């Protein structure tokens, strides 16, 4: 069970991956509805000393 934590994945990511797999395994008529729950467009900008700091591209790639 702890194998995923050694890979640097926390429980949130772990359960989201599991949820995505379950959604993809649904029957076709249910899958379209479930796919809507798989969308997230939230963007993040870290702030340092009162100024937004654009995240480095390399860092973002490794995250996604």
């Amino acid at each position, binding site marked *: 069970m*702890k194998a995923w*934590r050694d890979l640097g994945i*926390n*429980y*949130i*990511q772990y*359960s*989201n991956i599991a*949820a995505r797999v379950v959604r993809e395994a649904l029957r076709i008529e249910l899958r379209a509805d479930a796919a*809507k*729950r*798989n*969308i*997230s*467009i*939230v*963007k*993040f*900008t*870290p*702030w340092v*000393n*009162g*100024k*937004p700091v654009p995240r480095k591209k390399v860092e973002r790639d490794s995250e996604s």
Partner: protein
Amino acid sequence: MMMQRTQLLLPLAMEATMLAQQQRGMATLKMISIRLKSVKNIQKITQSMKMVSAAKYARAERDLKAARPYGIGAQQFFEKTEIQADEKAEPKKLLIAVTSDRGLCGAVHTGVARLIRGELAQDEANTKVFCVGDKSRAILSRLYGKNILMVANEVGRLPPTFLDASKIANEVLQTGYDYTEGKIVYNRFKSVVSYQCSTLPIFSGSTVEKSEKLAVYDSLDSDVVKSYLEFSLASLIFYTMKEGACSEQSSRMTAMDNASKNAGEMIDKLTLTFNRTRQAVITRELIEIISGAAALT
């Protein structure tokens, strides 16, 4: 029509009266009608915005009902274990402001920002803010820009999903800011016409493990606690986002309803002045014609 006729009859007199009118500070007919038209357009816009937010609100409320167990379940754990922040250690607070990107919805975002400003005024040095939604950032960045840890935007265009919430929770955990205690500041939805700005406590793993009452739960090792806390943070953020979205839509509905009502009042007043001015113009023209005719005979 009226204007044309008078211009044919008494071009000079007309110019003189126009000038007199403007000098007295009275609005001309044309100015009033332009204004009337624009207010009518505004009313149309606010009315349709109200309809849109009413539909969105209905959906948000349905979603909220489904999301409530997430929040209640996650809160139960903190209540049962009676976790208290370690007072000896230096407090490091984290505030998560749950708002959205969109405005025109009354005081929803201002309420959250005000509560956070109050917290920051107490202990500015040891508090950081995680802004969810552009609105809280816009309000807080001027005075407390240095306390902002991270901003999440593109929130509020679509109803929040659990994936959104877990992304945010993920960022909270990965910022590298070791908070000892935290609060999620959000708007709790009470009814269509009311919401309340409230807070939910969150704690870090080390604080939880120090709690004495943790023994009420059987066979907990630190790994389980860690996993659970991560998940509960995501659930709490999901729940608060749903509450916030629902309050926002209901508040926007009320705000747009009020705006349409106010526009309606303005339209009534403007129509009245418009008609009065038109009457006055007609009367004056008649007087001018009659007195002009009388002078000739």
